[in-house]
């Protein structure tokens, strides 16, 4: 189990980092969604090898799985859900204003006038 999880986490990290480094903001968003899932899976694997262990709510027979990482993941999922929702709305606003979500186009005028960020 542990090896497969490790390979899956590594694969998810690879894909999400590739996406986060792209120019389109929408792909960065998808990259972030994958990245948070990869992180959650990583946290889950920190409770150790689950084979032969019970779910923490079952009392009889055998050791329970360490429930703490699962509790942490629940919190993390809620947080990343909220942040993702915010990010989607921000992207929508950017798209409405600028008619594009590509970083290269958004920041092009910037490099020409070099007056960035001034109000």
């Amino acid at each position, binding site marked *: 189990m542990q090896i497969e999880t490790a390979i899956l986490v590594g694969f998810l990290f690879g894909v999400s980092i590739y996406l986060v480094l792209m120019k389109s903001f929408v792909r960065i968003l998808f990259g972030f969604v994958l990245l948070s899932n990869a992180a959650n899976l990583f946290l889950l*694997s920190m409770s150790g090898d689950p084979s032969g262990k019970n779910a923490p709510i079952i009392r009889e027979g055998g050791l329970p799985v360490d429930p703490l990482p699962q509790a942490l993941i629940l919190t*993390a999922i809620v947080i990343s859900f909220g942040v993702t929702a*915010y990010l989607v709305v*921000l992207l929508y606003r950017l798209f409405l*204003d600028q008619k594009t979500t590509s970083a290269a186009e958004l*920041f092009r005028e910037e490099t020409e006038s070099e007056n960035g960020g001034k109000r």
Partner: protein
Amino acid sequence: MNLPILFVVLPMASAILLLLWRKPSKSRRILGMVVTGFLTLAAVFTAIDLAANATRLVLNLGAWSAPLGIVLVIDPLAAIMLSLSGFTALTCLIYAVFEGTPKAEHPLRIPLLFFLLTGINLSFITGDLFNLFVAFEIMLISSYSLLTLEADDRNVKHAFPYLAINLVGSTLFLIACGIAYSVFGSLNFAHMASQSSQVLENPLLPALAGLLMLVFCVKAGLFPLYFWLPNSYPILATPLGAFYAGMLTKVGVYVLLRLLTTVMPHELNYLHQLLAWMGGATMIFGVIGAVSRHYVRGILSFHILSQIGYMALAIGLFTPLALTACVLYIIHHIIVKASLFLVGGTITCLNGTDDLNRTGGLWKATPVLGICFLLQALSLAGIPPLSGFWGKFLIFSEGLAAGEYVLVAAALIAGILTLYSMLKIWLGAFWAPAPESGVRLDDPRWKPLTALISSMALVSLAIGLGVEWVFRIANTAALMAMDQAGYTRAVFEVLGKGGL
């Protein structure tokens, strides 16, 4: 002792209250000022009291004692940070009152500021790594919303890089929490600290320490991870910009300080060395960036970075005196930086712009503002006897004692370039002849704004002149933060249900 929860619950309750009370009005602002003023006073008295008795305040939430429950711990260092966050929030609220009518600001601004304050305060006093993550998320999501709340269409895109890097940072923090759990078997600071000598051989420890440092270097804006900061901060309205500039990156510095001194083993020399060199690089690159800008807020935003470099260098040297210097420097920096941002806002108010090519004539128009600016700018550059000098002096002497001549030289060069870029603002805004549009002295806002800024300048001057007293508190704070055994004892002594 239930006092620690006050610093989280009070801002949160007022945020919710203000959220329900949507209509902008004067009394809404008064409520905000009363709450932040009260928090500041409470934190200052707590800091003085804790430092005088060298004790810590510990609260077991829900009476579950450590390491099973979440604990809140206020030691002198946390209390100092709490007073600074309250003070900065208070001055920013007052500035907003003088800057515009209640209707001019977005109705969500004050509630979000309070949520931000909740997150910041919780990350100062929490005694649990995962709780720290939650506190950071509260702080970050409020900061994203505040950043984009009042930004216009042209500027809102600058918020995206800020978001993107902080999201990746938060995810890495989550991973670090997972690794910490597997290394220490606990996420409680005291429990982790009590095992710090046993985990030294663990091969995961360098990975954990490196990952935590990476995360908080992103949050603090250390080289080479600072590119998100200088473009995103200038899009904020002046009072919010001052609050961000003063507090947000310093939360990252505080957590670095807390984790490296209180939680992690002290033997991680390679990491301290790396941090010191990153600090040195940040100083130089930050100040060079500042020299390249020609509008006030841009220059000041880059200066935040360069000053963060000094703090990182101080943490990297990792002697008791260097850590004292770091605390001293944080105290000095937050007040000076926030007030310089407010000076920038007043320049914009008087000249209609903060582009240094189109400002001028302010020295003749309002010498008081000029004197305040000079005091704060020279303090930032580290001219004695102003507040910035003492922190720098201690960092230099500790750096020389540790034989880090290159880093001390870099710090000196950064100091000179700081002076140069401050001179740029001085020449452009104060000494240059007034622009054709003239100085808008008929604008009624500038007088109370200048009065507020001069009161901040007085506070910072008082810190510089009364440094012996401040030094004593900072020294106690640094020593107590380093005292892992004392921290552990204080946390485990408080009884509740559970416990091991």
